[in-house]
């Protein structure tokens, strides 16, 4: 069946453990990955906290789902857009984020970074370029 491939953007604006939004978003992304669409993820506002390295939830009794982001490349989810202004407002830089990579099948499986830092105007353009925007 040759159905039109649509561009899906998952918008993440919540920190990871205070509410269920972030985990639910990741679950939906993984489910949606089965449908062969053109998927991107956006991280802005408190959503950038989802990608910080060194998360350890052992003492609060909830699942640490941050390692799952590193598996997204295997599901062909390779575009994680992170807003520079949101990082800076929170005293973060790209160095505070996990290393998330994918293997590019069109480039002899070269390992490439999935995280792409963009500014606010670029993020607005990315949002406006989608067929479907799902917000979390």
């Amino acid at each position, binding site marked *: 069946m040759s159905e039109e491939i649509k561009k899906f953007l998952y*918008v993440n*604006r*919540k920190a990871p453990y205070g509410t269920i*939004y972030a985990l639910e978003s990741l679950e939906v992304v993984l489910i949606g990955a089965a449908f062969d669409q053109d998927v991107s993820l956006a991280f*802005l*506002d408190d959503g950038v906290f989802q990608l910080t390295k060194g998360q350890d939830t052992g003492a609060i009794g909830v699942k640490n789902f941050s390692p799952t982001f590193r598996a997204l490349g295997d599901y062909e989810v390779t575009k994680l857009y992170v807003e520079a202004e949101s990082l800076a407002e929170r005293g973060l830089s790209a160095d505070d984020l996990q290393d998330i990579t994918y293997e590019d099948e069109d480039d002899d499986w070269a390992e490439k970074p999935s995280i792409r830092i963009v500014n*606010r105007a670029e*993020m*607005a*353009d990315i*949002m*406006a370029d*989608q*067929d*479907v*925007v799902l*917000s*979390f």
Partner: protein
Amino acid sequence: MSTLHTVNKSPFSTQSLQSCLGHARDGDAVLMIEDGVYGAMTGSQMADAVAARGNAVSLYVLGPDLTARGLDAGRLIEGVTGVDYAGFVDLVASHDRTQAWL
């Protein structure tokens, strides 16, 4: 190719309206619903920022949510248009995509 943005939180409890206004592109529409309607009222700390963006972005507020909260439609920021549920549907249908700011 324009987007309808919906905002359902008060601008005094979250950054959703502020972030929405910062990402909406000229020609987009912003519809304030539920507690988002507090962002449409004059006299608040947010009012100037909302009004300023209204030059390039169409601003709407859902009337039933105003009424439910006892808010006076006469105190809406200038340029904000009230719509009913049918108007909400029309806005969704007349834009290419809808993006919720939760």
